[in-house]
C-alpha cells in the first residue's frame, strides 16, 4: 500500500497487489505441498494430535501477504489461490485442499477484521496465526471425520494448534515481512 492510500477497510486492489498475491501463493503452494505430505502422514497415522504439531506451518504466507498488502481479503485470496496451486502440484487431499485455504484464510481475516485492518504488530500476527491454525483444524475435522463429540484428541489438540499457528505462522510471517521491509523492496511492509 502506498502512502496516502485509504487504510483499514480498503478493498481497492491495485495490479501490483494482485501480482504479489499470485507470486506469494505460487511460492507457498510449492512449499506447502512438500510440508503437506509430512502433515498427512502425521495426521492420518497419529490423528488430530499428530496433525496439530505441524498444522501451524501452513499459514505463514497468509500473514506475510496481509502484512505486505494490508487490505481486507488478502489472506483469504492467498489461501484460495495457494490451495488451488497445491491441487495442481498433487496435494493428497485434491480439491479438499480448497477447504483449508478458505478456513485458514478466514481465520486470519477474522482477527484482522477485529483489529479493523489497522494493527500490524507482532501480537496481531501471533493471534492471526493461532486463529488461522485453529480454523484450519475445523476443516480437518470435517474432512477426516474427527468427531469432537467422541474424539477427545480433537479437544486436546486445540492448545497445540494454537501454539503451532502462533509460532510457525504468526511469528514466521511477521519476521518475514520485517525482513522483506529491510530489503526496501516493498514499501508498506515496515
Amino acid at each position: 500500500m502506498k502512502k496516502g492510500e485509504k487504510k483499514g477497510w480498503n478493498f481497492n486492489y491495485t495490479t501490483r497487489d494482485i501480482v504479489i498475491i499470485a507470486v506469494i501463493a505460487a511460492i507457498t503452494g510449492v512449499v506447502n505441498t512438500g510440508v503437506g505430505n509430512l502433515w498427512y502422514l502425521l495426521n492420518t497415522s497419529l490423528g488430530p494430535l499428530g496433525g496439530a504439531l505441524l498444522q501451524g506451518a501452513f499459514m505463514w504466507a497468509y500473514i506475510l501477504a496481509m502484512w505486505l498488502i494490508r487490505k481486507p481479503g488478502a489472506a483469504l485470496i492467498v489461501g484460495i489461490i495457494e490451495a488451488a496451486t497445491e491441487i495442481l502440484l498433487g496435494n493428497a487431499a485434491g480439491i479438499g485442499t480448497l477447504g483449508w485455504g478458505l478456513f485458514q484464510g478466514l481465520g486470519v481475516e477474522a482477527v484482522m477484521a477485529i483489529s479493523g485492518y489497522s494493527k500490524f504488530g507482532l501480537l496481531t500476527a501471533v493471534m492471526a496465526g493461532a486463529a488461522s491454525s485453529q480454523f484450519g483444524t475445523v476443516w480437518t475435522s470435517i474432512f477426516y471425520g474427527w468427531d469432537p463429540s467422541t474424539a477427545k484428541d480433537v479437544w486436546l489438540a486445540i492448545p497445540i494448534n494454537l501454539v503451532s499457528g502462533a509460532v510457525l505462522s504468526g511469528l514466521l510471517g511477521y519476521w518475514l515481512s520485517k525482513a522483506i521491509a529491510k530489503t526496501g523492496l516493498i514499501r508498506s511492509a515496515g
Partner: protein
Amino acid sequence: MSTSEHGLVFENRKSYLNSVYPLVKLAWVFVVAIGLFIYRSPISGAVMFLTILLVAMIAGKIPFQQILGSGKIIFGLGLLLMFFHFFVDPGNVVFKLGPLHITDNGLLQGPIFFFRLSVVVLASFILIWTTDTRDLMVSLTKAGVPYRGAFAVFLAMRFLPLIQKEVDAVKAAHSIRGKPTNSKFGHRFKLWRRYIFTILINGLRKAETTATSLECRAFGCFPTRTYVKDVHYKPLDLILLLVTILISGGLIVAERVL
C-alpha cells in the same frame, strides 16, 4: 517440485472429458465431493470410486498406469486413515490387538473415509489431466468472476515452473559456495529457510516488474477483456454432471431406503 513429477499435467487426448466445458467439470468435482460427504455406507463410496475410475479411463482416455502412478500416495494415506478409524472410533470391540481395540463402528467408518479421500482426490486429478488452466480461468470469468481475480490464479500457475527453476538456481548457487543439500536435517532446514527467503525476494522483484508491464498494457482499465483462445459451453457437456448427480442421488436414496 513440478507438476510433471506427479504426472499431473494437462494433456489433450481428444477425449469426451477434454471437450467438456471447464466450469462443468469443476462443478462435477464438487458434486462428487459433496456426495462423498453425505454417504453413510462404504458401499456407496466403493460404487463412486469405480464410477470415477471408469469415467477417467473411458471418457477421459487416461491410462490406468497413470492413475495408479499419481494416486499411490493418496491411496496409501487413505489406507492409513482407514486403519486409524478402525482403532479410534468408539463402538463395540470386535477384535483386540494388544492394547489396541478394533470397533464395529470403526470397521464401518474406516472404509467410508478411505473412499472419501480417494474419490475426491481422483476426481480432482481428472480435472487437472483434462483441463487447460487457461480455459478454466476464461470460463470462470465468463461465469462472473472478476477477470483481475481469475488472472491472479492464472498468474500463480504461470509462476510455478519459474519458481521451480529459481529453486534449482538457488540450490546450485549454495552448492557452489560449499553448502551441500544432502546434509543433516537441521542443516537442511536452515538451507531451506535461506532458499525460501531468496526465492521470496526474487519473486517479489518479479512481481513488481510484472505489475508495471501489465499496467503499461492497460490491464484492469476496462470492465471486460477479450481472449485469444475462447472456450464455449455446449448443452451436451451437462451429461457428465447430470449422470453423476443421478448416480450420487440414487446412492443416497438407496442407503436410506434399503
